């Protein structure tokens, strides 16, 4: 089973990398960009095909390692 964990910065957390990308997009003349926030995507293959178990394992992975929940939120999707 394939899954995706998306990690994003919580709102209110300063994201200098996102700001720099936003600035670069504006200088390239890409229209209509109001703001950019950078995050991370983890594509994960699971041995187990039980959806409930998979979801629990992915949440465990995100809490223990993939996200720093002081500053980041995460979203788990089974594909």
């Amino acid at each position, binding site marked *: 089973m394939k899954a995706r964990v998306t990690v994003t910065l919580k709102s209110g957390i*300063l994201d200098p990398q996102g700001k720099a990308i936003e600035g670069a997009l504006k200088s390239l003349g890409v229209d209509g960009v109001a703001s950019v926030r950078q995050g991370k995507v983890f594509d994960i293959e699971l041995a187990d095909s039980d959806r409930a178990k998979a979801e629990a394992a992915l949440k465990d992975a995100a809490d223990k390692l993939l996200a720093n929940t002081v500053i980041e939120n995460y979203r788990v999707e089974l594909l």
Partner: protein
Amino acid sequence: MKSAVLVFPGINRERDMARALKLISGKEPAMVWHAETSLPSGTDLVVVPGGFSYGDYLRCGAIAARAPIMNAVGDFAAKGGLVLGVCNGFQILCEAGLLPGVLMRNAEIKFVCRNAHLRVERSDTPFTRGYNAGQVIRVPVAHGEGNYEADEETLKRLEGEGRVLYRYCSADGVVGEASNFNGAAHSIAGIVNDGGNVLGMMPHPENHVEDIMGCTDGRGLFAGLVQHLEKAA
């Protein structure tokens, strides 16, 4: 003072740290590999040195913070053992949950390598007793992610409990935007945990301990730890 310096893949300041510890305490520290599950018996001080553990993959310090040796460090700290984390070591201690908050990318997204002035906020702790409260010391910094951030409540607690031990300042001790080169909340350069026995700091005191380095302002931190342990013994 019996110290143990942790070694993770990608760490590169462990020998500077070991040299400073040997110089000031007179004892060779034990170098402890990350895959170990226990600290040498009789350890007085655990040092998590600087560098780029695991190439800063995922987040700075994130992988190292989950290494086997960190469970032993957690137990050691819970019993009141002294732990010092410098630079990447500070990031590792935050990721391991031994210190609150997080080190974010420097506000101007640049790696900063230079001397910084630090104001020692109090002198009545094991990590600062080698200095006077309010003293300004000059210590090198070299980091890309040293911008300390925590939620408002945590910052309020850190300030209220006097847990900010080192703050970025000007040469004459003024704290403000001009000297806060990485954008850290409240110009924080170093904090302790609620037990006061775990210090994390971004600057490198181990790099200012000998005349040949051009400055010896970092010695006070280590000399203070030695004094503290001698007094306790």
